[in-house]
C-alpha cells in the first residue's frame, strides 16, 4: 500500500470511530428532542448521563479527521472548502450550538424555561448536524454540490441521521434497564425499520443518479461489503428483538462500519469525486511520512486513554451504585 493510501485508510478509521461514537452522541440529542410519554424526563436524563463524560472526546475524531485531511491532502481540503462552503458553515453552526446547548443545560439555570429552550436547541442541532455531514459525504461521492435538494445527497443525509439515532437507541437500551430500556428498544426497532426504508430508497436513487459510485457498489469487492451490511441489518434487529442488547450493540456498530467500508471501497481511488484521487490530492512525501511516523506515538497515548475513559464511564447495564466503586490509580 502506498503512503497516501495508508493515511487515507487512517482517515477512514477515524471516520468510522466518529460515526460509531460521535454519531451516537448526535443520536442521543435526537432522542432527547423526541422524548415522549410518562418517562420523558428519565429518557432525557439517560441521554445526558450517557453522553456527558464522553461527547467531547468523541467529537475530537472529527477534528483529527479534518486535520489529517488538510495535512495529507491539502488540495482536497481546499476543494471541499470552496465547493461545500455553505453546507460546512452550517455544520459548524450545528456543532457550536449542540455543544453550547448541552453544557448550558447541564450546568446553567435549572429554570424550566431555560432548560426547555436549551433542550430544543440541543436536540435540533443534534439532528441537523449529522444530516448535513451525510449530505456532504454524498456530495463528494457523486460530485454534485450545487443543488441543496439533490436527491442522492439528501437521502445520504437522512440515512446518516437515522443511523445516528439507531446507534444511540441501541446503546441506550444497553445502558438502561426496566421500562426505560423498553422505551429505547422500541425506538431502536422503529429507527431500524426507517433506516432500512431510507437505504432502499438511497440504493434506488444511486442506481439512477450515482453513475460511477453505483457501478463500483454493484461489483466486487464493494458489493460484497454491501451484501455483508444487508445480512448484518436483520441480525442486529433480531438481537434487539430477543433483548440481547450487548449483541445488538456489537452488530449495530458492525453494520455502520461495514457500510462505511463499502462506501470507501466504492469511492476508491477518489477522495473527492471527480476532482481529486487520493494520489492527486496528496501532500509532498516528506509531509506524509511525518504524519505516518507520528501516528504510532499519537495513537499509543490516545488509545489507552480512550480505553480508560470508557472503562470508567461505560461499564454497562450492571453499573449501579457507582459511588461505591471508585477507580484508584
Amino acid at each position, binding site marked *: 500500500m502506498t503512503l497516501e493510501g495508508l493515511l487515507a485508510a487512517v482517515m477512514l478509521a477515524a471516520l468510522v470511530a466518529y460515526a460509531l461514537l460521535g454519531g451516537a452522541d448526535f443520536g442521543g440529542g435526537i432522542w432527547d428532542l423526541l422524548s415522549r410519554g410518562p418517562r420523558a424526563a428519565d429518557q432525557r436524563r439517560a441521554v445526558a448521563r450517557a453522553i456527558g*463524560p464522553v461527547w*467531547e*472526546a468523541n*467529537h*475530537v475524531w472529527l*477534528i*483529527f479527521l*479534518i*486535520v489529517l485531511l*488538510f*495535512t*495529507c491532502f*491539502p*488540495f482536497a*481540503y*481546499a*476543494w*471541499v*472548502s*470552496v465547493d461545500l*462552503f*455553505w453546507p*460546512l*458553515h452550517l455544520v*459548524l*453552526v450545528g*456543532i*457550536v*450550538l*449542540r*455543544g*453550547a446547548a*448541552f*453544557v*448550558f443545560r447541564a*450546568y*446553567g*439555570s435549572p429554570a424550566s424555561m431555560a432548560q426547555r429552550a436549551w433542550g430544543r436547541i440541543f436536540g435540533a442541532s443534534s439532528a441537523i448536524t449529522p444530516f448535513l455531514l451525510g449530505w456532504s459525504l454524498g456530495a463528494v461521492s457523486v460530485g454534485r454540490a450545487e443543488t441543496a435538494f439533490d436527491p442522492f445527497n439528501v437521502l445520504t443525509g437522512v440515512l446518516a441521521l437515522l443511523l445516528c439515532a439507531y446507534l444511540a437507541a441501541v446503546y441506550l437500551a444497553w445502558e438502561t434497564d426496566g421500562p426505560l430500556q423498553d422505551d429505547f428498544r422500541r425506538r431502536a426497532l422503529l429507527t431500524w425499520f426507517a433506516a432500512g426504508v431510507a437505504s432502499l430508497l438511497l440504493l434506488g436513487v444511486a442506481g439512477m443518479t450515482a453513475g460511477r459510485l453505483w457501478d463500483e457498489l454493484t461489483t466486487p469487492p464493494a458489493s460484497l461489503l454491501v451484501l455483508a451490511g444487508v445480512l448484518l441489518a436483520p441480525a442486529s434487529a433480531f438481537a434487539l428483538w430477543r433483548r440481547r442488547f450487548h449483541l445488538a450493540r456489537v452488530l449495530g456498530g458492525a453494520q455502520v462500519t461495514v457500510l462505511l467500508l463499502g462506501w470507501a471501497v466504492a469511492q476508491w481511488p477518489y477522495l473527492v469525486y471527480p476532482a481529486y484521487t487520493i494520489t492527486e490530492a496528496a*501532500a*509532498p512525501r*516528506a*509531509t506524509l511520512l*511525518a*504524519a505516518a511516523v*507520528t501516528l504510532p*506515538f*499519537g495513537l499509543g497515548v*490516545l488509545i489507552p*486513554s480512550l480505553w*480508560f*475513559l470508557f472503562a*470508567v*464511564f461505560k461499564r454497562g447495564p450492571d453499573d449501579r451504585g*457507582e*459511588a461505591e*466503586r*471508585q*477507580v*484508584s*490509580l
Partner: protein
Amino acid sequence: MSPLTAARVQMELSLGFHMLFAAVGMAMPVMLLIAEWRWMRYGDGDALALARTWSKLTAVVFAIGAVSGTALSFELGLLWPRFMGFAGPLIGLAFALEGYAFFIEAIFLGLYLYGWERLSPRAHWLCGWAVAVSGALSGVLVVSANAWMQDPVGFRVGSDGLPLDVDPWAALFNPAWPLMAAHSTFSTYQAVGFAAAGTYAWALLRGSRPERDRYHREGLRIAMLLAVTAAIVQPLLGDLLAKRAHLRQPAKLAAMEAQFTTERRAPLRIGGIPDPETGRTRYALEIPGGLSFLAAGDLDAEVAGLDEFPREEWPNVVVTHVAFQIMVGAGVVMLGVAAWYALDAWRRRADRSRPIGRSLLVALALCTPLGYLALEAGWVVTEVGRQPWVIYGVMRTADGVTPITSVAGSLAVFSALYAGLLLILVFFLRHLARQPLDHARA
C-alpha cells in the same frame, strides 16, 4: 464589504472568540490542581468548594472552546483555501500533534469533570495533571503554525507557486516558535489569573456574603499565584520577542513603535496616534534612544523605519501601534499590581488570616479585564503587524482568500452566533456565582 475584508473579520472574530475560552482551558486546570491539592493535603473545605465551582465553569467554557476550535479548523480552509493548499503540508504536522494533545485533554477533562465520585481522590487529581499538561501542550503546538506564518521556513517556492523541498519538521521547529509559544502560554495564565483574582477581590470588597470571605480569599490567592508569575515573566519574553522582530520582521516592529523613518538613537514612543499620511506620531511621549536600546541593546543602534518598505507592504500602523500600546500598558499596570500584591503577601505571611487591604483589593478588581485585554491586543499586534502577508514575505493575505463571494453572509451568521453565546455566558457566570458552595464529596 469585500469578500477579503469579510473573511478577515470572520477569522478575527472566530479566533478572538475562541481565545477567550481556550485561555481558560489552559489556565483553569492549573488552578484546579492547586485547589484540589490544598484540599487533599490540608483538608481545606473552601479549596474543595473552589475546585468544584471551577470544575463547572471549566466544563462550560472548555466545551465552547472545543466547538469554536473545531469551527476554526474548518474555517482555515473555508476562508483561506489557497493559503491552506500551500501551507497545509507545512503547518499540518503542528496541527496533527496538537490534535493528539487536544484529544488527551478532552478525554481526561471528561474523567475529571464527571469523575469526582467515580475516581479516588488521587486518581482524580492525576487526571487533572493530564488535562493541564496536554492543554498547555496543545496551545504550544498550535502556536507553531502561527509562528511559521511569521517566520516561514522548511520549503522553497516552486515555479508553479507551490512549495518545493517541503520539510515539515523544519516548519514545526521554526525559529519563531519557542518564544511565541512561551509568551502565549503565559498570557493565558495571566488573563485567567487576573480575571479570577479580580472577581474574588470584587466579591471581598462588596462583602455582601461575609460567610464566604475565606472562600474568596482562597480563590484570590490561588489565582494570584498564576497572575504574579505571568506578570513577571511576560515582559521579559515580550522584550526578547521585540528583539526578534527587529531582526526578522522589521516592518512589524516599525509599525508597533510607529517608527516611520530609519534612524539611529530611535526614541521609544509611549502612546500617541500615528498618522501614516504625514509619517508623524502625535501626542506620544518619546524617550530618546529608548527603542534602539530595547531592540538592539545599544542607544545608538539603527532601527529600520517603515520608509524602508514600499507603502503597499506596510501593515496597518494605527491598529498595530495602538494595540501594542494597550498590551504593554496593561502589562505594566499588572506588573505593578502583582508586585504590590507580592509585597503585601510577604508582610502578611506571619498572620494569614489578616485581611488584604482595601486599596489593594480595589487595584486587583480594576485589573480584572487587563489580562484578557493584553491577550487580545497582543494577538492583534502579531496578526495585523504581519499584514499584508498571510505567510510573511511569501503569500499575501489577498492571495490566500476564498473565491466565494458570499462571505459577508457567513460572517453575519457567525457574528450573531458568537455574540449570543457571549451574552449567555455572562448570565451563566452570574448563575454560577449564586450557587451554594459545594463542600461535599461522596
